[in-house]
């Protein structure tokens, strides 16, 4: 099987305006159809890396998304193809109603009124929030907010879904629903988190970051069962959790695309 690369990053360096160096030479290749978890301790540069995927931050080095270099001329196209979901849904949902939020992306893309309405109802159905269009995001439960936040990018029909801390603050049921939603969404996915069981469940490949660099990259089982590696980079599995080698047949996207 051969795939086109969805994300190509070469030698990416980034320092924040206050001088804090966040990325010290990151190389990463993500192929279309993959589900990749990026894990690492706080301050490893995970979220900074994520903001480079659609050109919100621009560091030194090369970033290509579906072959397009991330630069001003391509931003419109890249932001349509990359659906970036932020950690706090209160940041993602800024409009007076859920409908307006989900319609924000499609309207910016210049779709017609009918196309926008269609895209919104499709996206809300995918995340199971039909009928809440007129609600204010303030009145949703936290789990509903998280799912609404995903809907706001699904309505743009993205080819790459990028999620920052998708499972944080979710209760077990909301977490289960969110996980199922991710598995139903069969596009390339990048998850940034330190919730290792969540990664185990949703990704085939794990990238470990620490100190602004990628320190390990491999399949989910071999990384998560390498206790020494995890420990060295400030990560650990929850007490009593042991990754088991599982048959990767159910949720693999690659096989469907052929």
């Amino acid at each position, binding site marked *: 099987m051969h795939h086109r690369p969805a994300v190509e990053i070469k030698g990416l360096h980034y320092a924040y305006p206050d001088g804090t160096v966040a990325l010290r030479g990151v190389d990463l290749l993500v192929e279309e159809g993959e589900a990749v978890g990026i894990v690492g301790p706080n301050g490893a540069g995970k979220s900074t890396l994520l903001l480079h995927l659609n050109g919100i931050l621009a560091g030194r080095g090369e970033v290509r998304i579906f072959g397009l270099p991330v630069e001003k001329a391509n931003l419109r196209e890249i932001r349509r193809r990359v659906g970036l979901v932020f950690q706090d849904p*209160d*940041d993602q949902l*800024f409009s007076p109603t859920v409908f307006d939020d989900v319609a924000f*992306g499609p*309207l*910016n893309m210049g779709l017609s009124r009918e196309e926008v309405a269609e895209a919104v109802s499709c996206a809300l159905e995918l995340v199971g929030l039909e009928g809440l269009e*007129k609600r204010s*995001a*303030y009145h949703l439960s936290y789990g509903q907010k998280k799912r609404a936040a995903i809907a*706001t990018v699904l309505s743009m029909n993205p080819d790459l879904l990028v999620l920052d801390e998708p499972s944080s603050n979710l209760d077990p049921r909301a977490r289960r629903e969110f996980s199922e939603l991710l598995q139903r969404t069969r596009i390339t996915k990048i998850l940034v988190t330190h919730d290792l069981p969540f990664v185990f469940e949703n990704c085939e490949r794990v990238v470990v970051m620490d100190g602004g660099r990628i320190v390990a990259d491999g399949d989910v089982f071999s990384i998560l069962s390498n206790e020494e590696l995890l420990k060295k980079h400030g990560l650990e599995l929850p007490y009593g959790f042991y990754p088991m080698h599982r048959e990767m047949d159910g949720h693999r996207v690659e096989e469907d695309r052929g």
Partner: protein
Amino acid sequence: MKHAFLDEYSGLRSPIHQLDPRAKLVGFAALIVVCVTTPPNLYAAFAVYLGLELALLWLSRLPLRHVARRMLIVLPFILVVAAFLPFFSRGGGSYNLGPVRVSGHGLLVLWNVAAKSTVSVLAVILLSSTTPFPDLLRGMERLRVPRLLVALLSFTYRYIFVLVDEMQRMRRARDSRAWRGKWLWQSKVVGHMVAALFLRSYERGERVYAAMLARGYGGGMHTLYLYEPGIMEVGFASLVMLVPLAARIIL
């Protein structure tokens, strides 16, 4: 934490609720302008304004208790200030109420303030309780209210209670640590809390902006407008504009 929203009861169904927000915006704004420019001694005109509003209130089927509660939030502030006027103002003849002297001019000013604020506040309550706030914003947008102002109102509507919640959480965290002490120390702590809230809001603003950019924001706010103005809207706007105007001129 739950908060009463500005536009409580705006989801009811009534002839007034169903109108295009633009008609209501224009109508009620006109009513307020006509009312505040009416000379205070045209008592009958004020009766007409209030009568018109009561008729609309009846049509809109809003619970009276809700309207009364809203009025009670706003009016006392205005009236408490105005209530002192008859005692301190001079001129316009005066009446003796036992030991206190009341000025006729001051009484007229009190009446002026009371009548105009009642009519105006009631108009605003009628508008905000019969129109969902998001629709009101879109109506304003269509009426060419400056984009920046509409966006500002929209973010305020969305985030005001997020901020209130944040403040409440900070207050709980503070009180849980047996917070008390001298006034000076207290005011210092409150100062720190306000600063923390400001910084958090500032950072949230940056994150919200990033979330907007990530979805292709390019400077313009696009929204869908689902209302079509028709005969009802024209009828409503002309009724609410022309009746007070006629009362103001004829009476």
